[in-house]
């Protein structure tokens, strides 16, 4: 039975390079996808993937299980490193998340993906389903903040909506997601 992520992180914190290799093999596709979604440029994407796993290696001893699963922690690092690059070169993407409409998200849910673990696919299905239940305008605010790294003022400017409206949309969206995704927190290893 392959070691779970928490065990790998403990081994990495102890300097076990083999654990890093296993961890990298397990999650590079998803980290790559997050970096690619945010950056959309292959050169930077590769660098971000490397930086993400390097940071995971260096900070494995700082991982706190109470703050979420190992995968969530890793993807948070990937997002942060990708947004650093985006913000540094000022080339924020205009496009919303693929499958912007609820229908498209539902379609993604049914497709799944054979290249990643069953657990990861299950998580993806749950998150996409939760996103698909949000009104389009709430989902847009959320995606512009999360994937494009925009502040609420920037989102208001981009969408032409009052700042207060954006704040409300983002707040409602997050509260709904928090409830829907509670199951992932309970499953976190």
């Amino acid at each position, binding site marked *: 039975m392959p070691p779970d992520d928490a065990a790998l992180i403990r081994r990495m914190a102890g300097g076990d390079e083999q654990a890093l290799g296993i961890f990298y093999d397990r999650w590079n596709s998803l980290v790559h996808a997050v970096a690619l979604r945010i950056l959309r440029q292959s050169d930077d994407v590769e660098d971000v993937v490397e930086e993400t796993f390097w940071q995971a290696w260096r900070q494995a001893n700082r991982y706190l299980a*109470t703050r979420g699963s190992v995968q969530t922690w890793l993807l948070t690092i*990937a997002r942060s490193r990708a947004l*650093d690059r985006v913000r540094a070169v000022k080339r924020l993407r205009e496009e919303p998340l693929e499958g912007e409409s609820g229908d498209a998200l539902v379609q993604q849910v049914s497709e799944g993906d054979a290249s990643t673990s069953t657990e990861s696919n299950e998580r*993806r299905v749950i998150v996409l389903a939760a996103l698909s239940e949000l009104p389009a305008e709430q989902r847009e605010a959320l995606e512009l903040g999360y994937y494009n790294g925009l*502040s609420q003022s920037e989102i208001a400017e981009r969408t032409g909506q009052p700042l207060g409206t954006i*704040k409300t949309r983002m707040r409602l969206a997050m509260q709904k997601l928090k409830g829907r995704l509670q199951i992932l927190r309970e499953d976190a290893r």
Partner: protein
Amino acid sequence: MTTAGMAHEQALQALEALALDALDANERVAVLAHVSGCAICQQEVIALQVTASQLAYAVTPVPMSSVQRDRIRTRLAGRVAADRVHSPEVHPSASSVILIPHPEHAAHAGRHWFESPSSWLAMAATLVAAVSLATLYQVTKERDSIQRTYQYASVRTAQADSLRAVLEDRDRLIANLTGPQVAVVTLTSDGIRAPSARMFWDQAVNQWTFVAHNLPAPKTGRTYQLWLVTAKDKINAGTFSPDAKGDAVVRATYNLPKDALAAVAVTDEPSAGSPQPTTTPIIVGANSTR
């Protein structure tokens, strides 16, 4: 209930955006100031932060090509190996000053509240370091074979150590700005150029990181001096000068009890510094998290 000037209810309304890292800079500072002293908000924001992180699962996994995957694996292995070969400790002195490379970067320096951004310079250094360190590792193993290889390795060692120091320093800075036990003190001024600054106190390791903007250049023979103000003392935290844009970062290590800090201040002093402040602070901030 209020903390640091922002009402609890007001801060509560902004926690979702804080978790998404989508607050504007000023609001973010105010919300963080409240959260740092509010257990209810801390608990809520952690839950929201996890929720925000889970959004990453919505992307469609995209496998890398085998060439890409192997290339990254090789670079990671090289960095890990080199990290084992060379492990010098970097101890920034109390007066060390790192100039912020670009205001745009500084403007975003606070956007990730639990994951700080890194600069292009540091990222470039990372890439160069990966290649240099991987090469160095191989060369080091063979350096007994011929003298020329040894000399080459020596040169690369110096380069790699230098780059590694940059990376170590960057990693340490990130930790000191974003750690779970970091208290933030905002300093303000009513001067014409409106200098502003923040002190990040990583109480877990007693590391202090002071970031200032819009500071006018000190006059000839003068310098700025940073002070940690307690009820009894004004503790010298180092002298510094801002860069041409008025930006400066001062890092210091000082062991202070968590409830001892009353304020942080900057004064104008002779270039050698002073044992105690001799002028009125040009910028000062009270520790509202006590």
